[in-house]
Every structure is written in structure tokens, then in C-alpha cells.
């Protein structure tokens, strides 16, 4: 039982990261019907920007490690949001009216661009976050020992997700985002500035991805220029699992994928971990083609 709970917390911690990333995929898809393949690389960008900020601003000298981490996450979120905004302007907006395939190719191009740009700037070697920023304490949860940082990472992901959910569902701008997702032309007729809403989505999604990147760097220490691929792919799958285009779906999908992976590794086979996760995905898609919380089958191509 203790091992089960331990594995559950392992899964939830990774799942929180998948969920944060999946939100970026799902929001962009919800609005533009576009898979933003560069999203995983924006996450990597966040990790690297956090690394640079940490090294250059001397944040590790701040009194509290947690405060430093918080400031770092917010700063990186801001910078990655700007990168996401520029990405949309340069790579997606000129193609908005063209074939959907062109936009997908453009997204893949942007992904390759980010990955190689990071490699050129930071080198091909993995970079390592400085040690000892986060406290090393642990908590006892349900009888198992969980590192405090792990718990905080999960709590931070959850807080960001709740904030987003509130923003999209309870504010006027959020209502505009939902309107654009349903019908761009009708939204425009209602006086919504569609371009601004799309830009906003490209600020929010990448910001969340950037936060995930910094958290990964702080907790695992190691970041590489190509890590966005693995995490991006997993998060993309999480988004589909939960029903792409659906915000609570992305959160659920991410958590679920993390847990399936951890339990699959624990009770079946580690080497087959990914295969198990993908089998579950296939099964879910067979019985619920739109994902767990997916809806609006008609307007999904």
C-alpha cells in the first residue's frame, strides 16, 4: 500500500507538468484548430530562460529559496509569453487564411527553429540548475514521505490551472476567448477583436509552458535543448486523452497520463510504460473518440 501511494504521488507530480503543458496545446487548438508543435520548445525555452535569469540575477542569494523560485517562475512566464506572442505573429498569423496543413508545417518549422536556436546559444550539452535553491524538507502525506518541493510543484501547477479555469469561465475576456473558440466570425460580428484574443491565448499558453519549464529545471536540475520533444509529445497526448480543445480535459488528461505511467511502471513493466500509456489512450479513443471530456464532435475535422 505504501508503495502504491508513493507511486501515486510520483505519477501526480509528473502529471501536473503534463497538465500545465497540455493546457497550451488545448487552448491553441480550441481557438485556431492548430496543433502548436512548437509548444514543447517554448517549454524548453522557459527552462533555459529561468536558468539564465538564475545565473545572471543572482536570485539564489535571496533570503528565501521559495521566494526566489516564485520570482523566477513569474519572470520566465513573462518572457516565454512574449516569445509565444511573437511566434504567433511571425509563424501563424500570416498563414491564418491558408490551408491548415501549411500552418502545421509552419509549427513544425518553428519547433525545429527553437530547438536549434537553443542549441546554438547554450550549446549541445545539458545545462544544470544551481543546487540548493529549494528546501530539502519533506512532508508526510497519507503515511508516505513526499519531498516538499514535489508537493509545492504540484500545488503550483494546480494553482495556475485553477487561475486559468477561473479566468476563462468567469471573466469577460474569458467569455470572449470562449466565443472565439466557438465561432470566430460570429465573435467578430459581436465586436470581439479576434486577433487580440488569439494573441492573448498565445500569451497565456506559452506562459504556462514556461512555468512548467522552470519547475522542471528547479526540481530535476538537468535541462537539455531537446527535452521539449518528449514532454511536448506526452502533453499533446494528455490533451487528446482529456479531449483536445477542452481546458478541464487537459488537466484531467495530464494527471491521468502521469498516474497511468507511474502505475504501469510499478505493476507491469518499466520498459513497457509508454506502450501501456498509449494502449490506454487508444482504448479511450475507441470508446470516446473525442477524449474523456471532449465535446462538439461536429466541428472537429
Amino acid at each position, binding site marked *: 500500500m505504501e508503495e502504491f501511494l*508513493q507511486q501515486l504521488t510520483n505519477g501526480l507530480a509528473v502529471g501536473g507538468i503534463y497538465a500545465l503543458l497540455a493546457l497550451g496545446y488545448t487552448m491553441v487548438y480550441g481557438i485556431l484548430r492548430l496543433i502548436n508543435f512548437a509548444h514543447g520548445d517554448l517549454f524548453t525555452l522557459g527552462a533555459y530562460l529561468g536558468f539564465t535569469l538564475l545565473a545572471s540575477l543572482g536570485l539564489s542569494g535571496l533570503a528565501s529559496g521559495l521566494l526566489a523560485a516564485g520570482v523566477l517562475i513569474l519572470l520566465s512566464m513573462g518572457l516565454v509569453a512574449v516569445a509565444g506572442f511573437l511566434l504567433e505573429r511571425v509563424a501563424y498569423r500570416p498563414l491564418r487564411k491558408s490551408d491548415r496543413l501549411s500552418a502545421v508545417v509552419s509549427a513544425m518549422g518553428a519547433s525545429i527553429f527553437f530547438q536549434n536556436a537553443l542549441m546554438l546559444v547554450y550549446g*549541445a550539452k*545539458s545545462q*544544470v540548475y544551481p543546487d540548493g535553491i529549494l528546501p530539502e524538507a*519533506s512532508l508526510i502525506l497519507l503515511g508516505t514521505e513526499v519531498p516538499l518541493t514535489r508537493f509545492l510543484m504540484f500545488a503550483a501547477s494546480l494553482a495556475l490551472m485553477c487561475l486559468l479555469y477561473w479566468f476563462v469561465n468567469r471573466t469577460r475576456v474569458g467569455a470572449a476567448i470562449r466565443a472565439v473558440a466557438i465561432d470566430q466570425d460570429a465573435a467578430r460580428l459581436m465586436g470581439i477583436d479576434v486577433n487580440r484574443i488569439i494573441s492573448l491565448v498565445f500569451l497565456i499558453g506559452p506562459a504556462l509552458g514556461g512555468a512548467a519549464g522552470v519547475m522542471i529545471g528547479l526540481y*530535476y536540475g538537468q535541462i537539455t535543448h531537446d527535452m521539449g520533444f*518528449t514532454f511536448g509529445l506526452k502533453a499533446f497526448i494528455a490533451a487528446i486523452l482529456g479531449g483536445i480543445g477542452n481546458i478541464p480535459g487537459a488537466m484531467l488528461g495530464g494527471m491521468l497520463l502521469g498516474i497511468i505511467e507511474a502505475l504501469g511502471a510499478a505493476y507491469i513493466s*518499466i520498459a513497457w510504460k509508454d506502450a501501456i500509456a498509449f494502449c490506454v489512450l487508444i482504448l479511450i479513443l475507441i470508446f470516446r473518440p473525442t477524449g474523456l471530456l471532449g465535446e462538439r464532435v461536429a466541428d472537429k475535422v
Partner: protein
Amino acid sequence: MKNSFCRSPVLSVIATAILLLYANPAFAGVIKIGLMAPITGAFASEGQDMQKIVALMVEEINKAGGINGDSIELLVEDDGSTPRSAATAASRLVSKGVPAVIGTYGSAVTEASQDIYDEAGAVQIATGSTAIRLTAKGLKRFFRTCPRDDEQGRVAVTTLSKLEFKHVAILHDNSAYAKGLAEEAKKLIEEGKSASIVFYDALQPGELDYSAILTKIKGVKPDAIFFTGYYPEAGLLLRQMATMKWSVPMLGGDATNNYDLVKIAGQAAAKGYRFISPPMPTDIDSPAAKAFLAAYRAKYNSLPSSIWSVIAGDAFTVLVSAIKAKGTNPSAIAEYMHQGMPAVDGLTGKISFDDKGDRKGDLYRLYEINGKGEFILQKN
């Protein structure tokens, strides 16, 4: 005014001619040597270091007058860490007419290029490709300056039994190299009955979170973990074991011989980690190794971060001595390297080859990381 001056065709022809004159003051010949290395992709840090080392050695030889008066031109092609781009890289080097090629790191990547070099009649010296099958194909002009996986497996199992670990967990990463080594070790342990294998499975490289795997291994209570994969994962495993407050001795293969491991794991978590590897140049008491390290430090202001790039330097040293003796005919070079070549003083010790093209001699040593993150060679 300036523009029209530069555009003048006559002037540019003269300028080119002058440049060429300066480039080859003695009008000596040029010997082309190929380097196929993973400049991009998963092993990019290895490949970029390989390029740095070989380029430095080429520069030094050329400064000292080249080989028999001919200067060396190094042609670098990127194998992208994948077999597919290796085939392209090999074709490009072959089409430029190189008599000999150094490279490459990954075994599967090397394998994809072997036939291309062989058909073109070029000598190939692999530098990090330890898979056994590469030299079992009977290719006359294929060599490697790195040891083979079966030798590493043997040394690993001997080390495990010397350290008296009775219950061993073996973890690999499903790559051809790591899986081969894990299988070899498993076979030897089962044959020798020196220990029991309580866990045997693989992790997925590139994922940063291995706590699920570690939790599972912890459940079977091993005396030691033998990890056959690469240094980024080894570093993460050590770090996450420390976070779990679980300490069990871990032994690694030669792909974990990289100082980045200490950076990733943190000094405290890396302390006590052992691995087997060919000796580091800093641990070799030869003039060649000392001079090389001094030159490398002077030029790049650091030390090579891994042994495999240094072994690429060994390949270059061998080629230079073979070309010095036999000229640039690939078949003559290959024949000389198989037999007749006296042991060459390389960066990782003496180098000579057996008739299969494998490096002769016992190359593996045991290392342990101390509290300062230094790799300490263990006495046998």
C-alpha cells in the same frame, strides 16, 4: 566606390590567388582526413568535443610541418546521432575522396556507415562504438580505438563480485549499447552464480522523472544497482535517490564517464558512485597524454568532458603514424595497422589492433567519485 572596387572580377581573382598562395606556402600536398561525428542530435556534446580534439591535433601537426611535409585537411561531417544521417554523412565524405575516416560515437550510427566506407575502399576508425558485432563482419579496413562491450561486461561482473554485492539490480535504457552491456552482464552473472539478479528492466532516456522506477527497485531491496546507460540518466537517478533518502551503491558503465554527471546529481549525491571506463587522460602517465591535456586546456580553457572524444584523438594519432609509414593508400594503411605497426603511444595508453580491427589490451579501470566530485582511479 567601395562596392565597385570589391565587385571587380579581376581584383577578386587576384585576391583569391594571393590567398591560395598564402594558404600553401610550400605548395605541399594536402592529405584529407574525414571526421564523422554527432555534431547535432542526442550525442551532440560528444561530437562537438570530438571535433574540438581532432581539430586541435590537426592544427598542431600542421604547425609542426604536417605528415612528411604534407599538411592535413580535416573534413567534418555531422552524423546527427542517427543512422540515417550517418549514411548521408558517409556518402559525402566518400565523394570528397578521403582515404580514412575517424568516427563515430554510437554503435548503430557507425553500423549504418560501415558498408559505405568499405565499398569506397576507405579506412574507418570508430571511436565510441563498442557493440561486438561491428568487428565481426570481416571488414578489412574497419578499426576501433574503443574497447568492446563484452570486455566491459566481464570487468563489470568481476567488479560487482569483488565488491561482494549479492543481490544486483540491472537497469539499462533500451539503447543498443546499454541493452547489450546489460545482457552481457546478466549472462555472466547467471553463468558464474556470483550473485542473484533481483531486478532487470529498462528506463526511457530523456524523461526526467525516474522516481517511479526507483520506488520499484527499492521494493526489491538490492545490494547494488548496475546501470548500463548514459550519464544524464545516471545523474538523475543519483539525484532522485538522494531526494528519496535512499542510498544503495550504484555502479555504472563507461557511458557515465562524464563530469556532467556530477553537475546533474550534485556533489553530495554523486559521492560514492562507481563506474568502469577506459582510463582518463589525466590518469595516464605518458608524455603524449600530458602534452595533449596542456594543449587542450590552453586552447579551450577546460578539460575534455568525456573519454570518448579523447578516444577520437587516439584514432587520429594512429592514422597519422600509419600515413607517415605507408602514405595515403587505404589498403596499405589498413594492412599496416593490422600487422607491422608498433604499438602507438596514444592518449589513453598504447594502441595496437588485432586481426579483426579491435583494440588490443585491457583498457577498463574502476573509478569512484569522491566528495569533491572528482573521478578517482581505483587500484586493482
